[in-house]
């Protein structure tokens, strides 16, 4: 019955993942979209740790460590790109940055 203890955590991880996805779809601000990706990364972290505790392993927690590292790199690069876009266009609205649109 040990697995039943951790299944609510997996469900919560699903909810946070869906919220992050909805955030990326509906938000028009580039910085807010990056914030939503952080939500999704956190959802994955919760699922990793919950499955770890179910399986009696610690490898998932090691992967959470790597996800934290990659999230820091992603935030640095993403925000650098947003700053570059802002300098070029004076705007971070996705509705006006549409050069690649057909």
């Amino acid at each position: 019955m040990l697995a039943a203890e951790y299944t609510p955590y997996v469900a919560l991880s699903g909810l946070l993942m869906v919220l992050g996805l909805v955030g990326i779809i509906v938000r028009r601000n580039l910085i807010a979209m990056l914030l939503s990706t952080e939500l999704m990364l956190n959802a994955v972290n919760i699922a990793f740790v919950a499955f770890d505790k179910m399986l009696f392993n610690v490898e998932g927690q090691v992967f959470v460590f790597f996800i934290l590292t990659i999230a820091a790199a992603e935030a640095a690069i993403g925000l650098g790109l947003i700053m570059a876009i802002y300098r070029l266009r004076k705007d971070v609205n996705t509705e006006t940055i549409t050069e690649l649109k057909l």
Partner: protein
Amino acid sequence: MEQVLNDWAFYTFSALAIVSALGVVFFKNIVYAVLSLISTLIMVSGLFFSMGAELIGGLQILIYAVAIVVFYVLVISTVPEFKGNSVDPGYMLVSMPLGFILFLELAYVSLYGIWKEAVGVITPEVEVEVGNTKAVATMLFTKYLFPFEVASIILLVAMIGAIIIGRKNHVIDEEEAK
């Protein structure tokens, strides 16, 4: 008694995490959204603690809720206030029901699915004896030593890349100016 307390910790932290996540998605003012993100990250860290992953919970607060959020605050302080719709009503109409259905499916599968369990060696008894931090750190520095070093290189590359991308005057512009 311990189980009851753990349940209450789960309900409290998860409810606050969901409310703050809604704030991240729907606040128009980006500063409020970042504050909600800090709240979400701290609540997720509390969930890690209630699951018994102390090392990850501490790292979550140290790296996520402090270091990464500082990046966002610094960038928000340079980009002026966002004008225009914070959310797109058309996409909202489509994505909210679809997201809800997706969540129902994920919750159904995770609550009523049959998961593989108890195949590893770190049973709760072993974990009490060794300690979560020592177990994770031993795995990190033995089996996953090479990925650990690669992660450090990724961080270095990201740092250099962020400096070059975020620099004010690019080299090409300077050559054109001459």
